[in-house]
């Protein structure tokens, strides 16, 4: 870092600041930036961490600051240009009197954030808009990307709509109480992984392979080592030769041990080849460029069908000849599809495919590792699974679990992308070897070429039905491209053959699935996790079959959808631990049909080139994974009478710290803000498998419920013994008969008497409920330009009782926006050598404000008997029906079925019939 002793804030200048004086939020700093330094890093080096990096390329707006009052992207602004000028960041937005700026107040009121990584930039932009600009928010916010919210809550903030509910003792559950960090978020104080400065920090950079498949013959490091500031270089020869999987699951056996930290074979373009640590990022980068790698290029294969053929290049030799590149295959049949098709009056068969996409959580991957004075290693990281990351690090480095501490502070989005250990290992390696703290922050390009993606899947669907619409047979054949490594491959494949097929009752079902290694960037976990891919295929196919039979798509679904009391099964006979804790699919379908019929949203654009259509799709989710999942929670009453809650699960914008507090508060008849919460820390919280697979509520939330109940029983039990009366909790006191004893007082009395006001409980996920989502879309497509405009979006969600209605809605809206991106805008493009052509947000377009219409969200009136306090999973499944509903609406509008995502204008225009 470039800190200089003079680099301390000085009193604000009265006259013009001198040429090397920088006024940042009213404080004057004297410093000389590096010649090519951008303002973003210059500000962060001064400890102004509210300025975020989502891309470092001008595309996302997370780094927005004001220069003399004018908003600019600080990642593009040469730092020296701020000399003698005034820089305002989110930390300087509020007036000095400690109140909030109106825009901060508005964002707080509307809770216009989830992971909040975009929020500082969003507010700095919104606060600078003229009234004229506010009239056209899509245009005004086209330079600010948010991956979580779907922008509705941001629009609400801009329109002054507030949604937060008051925090009333005993009534927290079911109320839209704000995030406990809301104030820290809008003031820019919330700290993410990289928002710390440490003495003596080294910076890590990796060299990534330009080749899709190659053996490394040699790596010359002399020139790289000679770069001033380089501390160490690591190649495959320097790392433990121990196989593992970067994917994180409770059961380590569900993912193949097919990776080395650094390998002498690279299997995709973008794979790590070597790591350099140096005093500065610049030195590490320069050294990476000077490494001399001798590659022996190996034949590569990118298409999974080609990779399955005999004679295809082998990607993992050690796996035995007969299995070739097929990592996993799953087969099953119930009944007989042959008989089912024989008895069908109509059969639809078609191949559908879905594309590879990236999570684009706005905070990139990154970690900081160091050896503490306690003799242990500490890893501060951006993960969805700190406890599994810890286990993997122990495995790789042969460390004792008690010597390793992994934790998150605030995580800027995950969506499955951080269900992966891909940055912690190298930081720890370097910290152990150098004895210094080491940090590594992915670039946005690395997110695309060196992290994971949604599995690309190709699905052949065959459906048969009788004339009245009754399904007689469902057959699925799925080929999943898992890329160079097999993390999540079998689990996503299993999921692809699960939920979407389970949603329909049919006596004859057959499934065959293959997850195949290729020389592509690896697949990984991604919201919807395999189900999204085949939900697309099946939901399109159901519509096609309905069309063949002349049956309305809603009627077709009602005729065949799963009903309470049905045996829940896809294509295998084994009993499962899934049951109907509640059922609201019927309500969701009714709502969507009614809302579309009522005709909200926008009218069809004028002009005969526009064709209009509507579409629907449904999805079913098993609440939690079929694999093991565990979570613990721990509660304590504190001397001041407030509570402390520790939960292992990660908060990454999913809102779990808010809802966990609400669960505990409602059981303790307290206000939510009486409960302090820590989470995702292997030292401070009980074990948790990780926040993925829709488990934040049904597993971690369940543990919180049990711990809070035990806490309540512990307090009331003692109070009863102490007073001899019947007691109940009332916010910060117990009421025993006519007496009110403050919890602080009770704590003092109890502790003296040797009572422990503490509770710990663990929950395990078995007996899983089911949740449902139904999406309705009305759209218009321009027959000449291929432009698609979503005119009306409606969504019905059956997610049980809403612990926090505002958050639930936010999760649904965010999922829909992500579904729209998958369906309409996002595309990872590769050249013939398997290199990604568009690894930047400018060229890989996640939805911006303009791309996402508002959605009418309906919640089924259900109360789950399995999930905690009646709730079910909510963060994941809403994405699944979005793409097929859009595709079905497009087919309805044009009469043409487009079976391959994404539905980009240049992929569909040629088939759009010109109007008569």
């Amino acid at each position: 870092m470039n800190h200089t002793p003079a680099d301390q804030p000085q009193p604000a200048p009265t006259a013009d600041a001198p040429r090397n004086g920088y006024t940042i939020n009213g404080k004057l700093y004297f410093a000389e930036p590096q010649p090519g330094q951008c303002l973003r890093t210059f500000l962060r080096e001064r400890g102004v961490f509210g300025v975020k990096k989502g891309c470092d390329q001008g595309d996302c707006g997370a780094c927005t600051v004001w220069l003399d009052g004018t908003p600019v992207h600080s990642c593009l602004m040469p730092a020296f240009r701020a000399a003698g000028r005034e820089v305002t960041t989110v930390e300087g937005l509020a007036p000095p009197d400690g109140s909030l700026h109106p825009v901060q107040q508005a964002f707080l009121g509307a809770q216009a954030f989830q992971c909040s990584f975009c929020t500082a930039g969003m507010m700095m932009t919104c606060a600078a808009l003229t009234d004229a600009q506010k009239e056209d928010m899509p245009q005004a916010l086209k330079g600010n990307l948010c991956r979580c919210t779907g922008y509705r809550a941001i629009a609400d903030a801009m329109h002054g709509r507030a949604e937060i509910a008051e925090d009333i003792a005993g009534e927290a559950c079911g109320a839209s109480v704000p995030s406990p960090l809301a104030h820290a978020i809008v003031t820019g104080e919330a700290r993410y992984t990289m928002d710390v400065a440490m003495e003596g920090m080294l910076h890590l950079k990796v060299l990534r392979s330009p080749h899709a498949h190659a053996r490394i013959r040699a790596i010359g490091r002399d020139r790289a080592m000679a770069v001033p500031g380089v501390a160490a270089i690591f190649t495959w020869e320097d790392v433990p030769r121990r196989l593992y999987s970067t994917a994180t699951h409770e059961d380590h056996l569900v993912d193949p041990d097919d990776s080395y930290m650094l390998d002498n074979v690279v299997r995709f373009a973008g794979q790590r080849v070597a790591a350099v640590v140096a005093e500065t990022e610049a030195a590490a980068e320069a050294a990476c460029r000077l490494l001399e790698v001798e590659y022996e290029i190996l034949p590569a294969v990118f298409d999974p069908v080609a990779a399955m053929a005999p004679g295809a290049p082998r990607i993992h030799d050690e796996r035995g000849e007969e299995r070739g590149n097929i990592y996993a295959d799953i087969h099953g049949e119930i009944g007989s599809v042959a008989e089912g098709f024989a008895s069908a009056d109509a059969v639809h068969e078609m191949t559908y495919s879905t594309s590879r996409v990236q999570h684009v959580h706005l905070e990139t991957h990154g970690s900081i590792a160091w050896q503490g004075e306690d003799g242990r290693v500490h890893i501060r990281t951006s993960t969805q699974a700190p406890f599994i990351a810890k286990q993997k690090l122990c495995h790789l480095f042969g460390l004792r679990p008690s010597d390793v501490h992994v934790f998150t502070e605030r995580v800027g989005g995950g969506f499955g992308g951080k269900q992966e250990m891909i940055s912690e290992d190298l930081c720890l390696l370097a910290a152990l070897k150098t004895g210094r703290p080491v940090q590594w922050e992915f670039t946005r390009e690395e997110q695309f070429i060196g992290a994971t993606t949604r599995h690309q899947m190709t699905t052949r669907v065959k459906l048969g039905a009788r004339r009245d619409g009754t399904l007689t047979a469902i057959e699925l054949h799925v080929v999943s491209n898992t890329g160079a490594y097999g993390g999540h491959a079998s689990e996503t494949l299993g999921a692809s053959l699960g939920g979407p097929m389970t949603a329909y009752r049919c006596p004859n079902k057959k499934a065959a699935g293959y997850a195949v290694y290729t020389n592509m960037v690896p697949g990984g976990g991604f919201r919807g996790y395999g189900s999204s891919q085949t939900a697309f295929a099946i939901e399109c196919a159901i519509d096609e079959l309905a069309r063949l039979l002349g049956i309305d798509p809603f009627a077709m679904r009602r005729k065949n959808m799963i009903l309470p009391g049905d045996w829940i099964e896809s294509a295998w006979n084994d009993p499962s631990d899934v049951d109907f804790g509640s059922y609201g699919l019927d309500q969701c379908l009714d709502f969507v049909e009614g809302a579309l019929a009522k005709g909200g949203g926008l009218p069809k654009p004028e002009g005969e080139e526009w064709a209009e259509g509507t579409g629907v799709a449904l999805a079913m989710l098993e609440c939690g994974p079929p694999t093991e999942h565990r979570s613990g929670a721990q509660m304590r009453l504190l001397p001041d009478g407030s509570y402390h809650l520790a939960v292992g699960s990660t908060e990454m914008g999913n809102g779990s710290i808010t809802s966990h507090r609400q669960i505990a508060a409602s059981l303790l008849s307290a206000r939510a803000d009486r409960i302090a919460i820590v989470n995702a820390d292997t030292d401070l919280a009980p074990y948790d498998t990780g926040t993925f697979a829709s488990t934040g509520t049904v597993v971690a939330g369940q543990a919180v419920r049990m711990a809070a109940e035990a806490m309540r029983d512990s307090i009331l039990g003692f109070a009863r013994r102490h007073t001899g009366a019947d007691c109940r909790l009332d916010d910060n006191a117990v009421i025993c008969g006519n007496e009110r004893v403050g919890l602080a007082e009770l704590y003092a009395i109890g502790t003296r008497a040797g009572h422990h006001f503490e509770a710990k409980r663990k929950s395990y996920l078995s007996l899983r409920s089911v949740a449902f989502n139904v999406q309705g879309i009305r759209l218009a497509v321009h027959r000449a330009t291929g432009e698609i405009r979503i005119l009306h979006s409606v969504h019905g969600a059956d997610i049980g009782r809403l612990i926090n209605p505002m958050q639930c809605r936010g999760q649904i809206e965010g999922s829909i926006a992500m579904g729209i991106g998958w369906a309409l805008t996002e595309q990872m493009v590769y050249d013939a050598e398997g290199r990604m052509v568009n690894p930047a947000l400018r060229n890989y377009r996640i939805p911006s404000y303009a791309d996402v219409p508002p959605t009418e969200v309906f919640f089924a009136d259900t109360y789950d008997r399995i999930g905690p306090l009646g709730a079910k999973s909510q963060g994941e499944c809403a994405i699944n029906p979005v793409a097929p509903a859009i595709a079905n609406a497009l087919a309805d509008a044009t009469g043409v079925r487009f079976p391959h995502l994404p539905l980009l204008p240049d992929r569909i225009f040629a088939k759009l019939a010109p109007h008569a």
Partner: protein
Amino acid sequence: MNLNTITEVKRPQSADQITQWRPGYAWLAGGTWLFSEPQFGTDTLIDLQGLRWPALTPSASGLEIAATCHIAELFAFSAPPEWRAAPLIRDCCNAFLASFKIWNASTVGGNICMSLPAGPMISLTAALEGVYTLWPRDGAPREVAAVDFVTGDNANILAPGELLRSILLPASALSKRFAFRHASMTKLGRSAALIVGTQGEGDLLLTITAATPRPIQFYFPEMPPATALRRAIDARIPADGYFNDVHGSAAYKRHLTLYFAEQIRAELAAA
């Protein structure tokens, strides 16, 4: 992002202070492209901001735009009513994928010198018959028609170190009627086609940009019929002459070009 290979920033008060040029030098305008990608081949930035060229100079002969004029300044320009084509300025600014915050930093010259197919300042200045003044490192200033400046994707006629000084949009062009068509594969996204027609007295000047690697212009002294227009475009731009990239396939861009060109023809012919 940090440009870690930069070791020096020169901040001249006048362009003559830069007497030598060598590989590794780059003019720094707004920096919004330069700082958006690593610039491994560059070690020295030469800041144009200190030259203090007046951003916009309207006169009877037209509008002179300094290369260093910010997009935001151009967007805010209010033109005399007789410059009927002036609204095209805003249309073209809005065709940027980049938002108004980028406009506060990026410059007209920077966009032109980037010479990307989707460069809307190229579209604007080509459609309005702009003339660029270029300052070679040694030698006298030269002038070139906007439409001849860009030679391909990210390629132009600038010699090493040569500077784009200014753009003149002649009043005659600014006074014409115009029709504008634009498409992007995502809402308010990067241009797939940006096509402009202008009309003086019954003629048609059609400028095709974004769909092709460089601007292509057609002049018809009289408004052509639809078939003639289409034939002229096909004759000049072969099917593979369109720009194929992630913002639209060549086939799609050809389709858009022909569709919009005909719309423009019809719109201007109707008046």
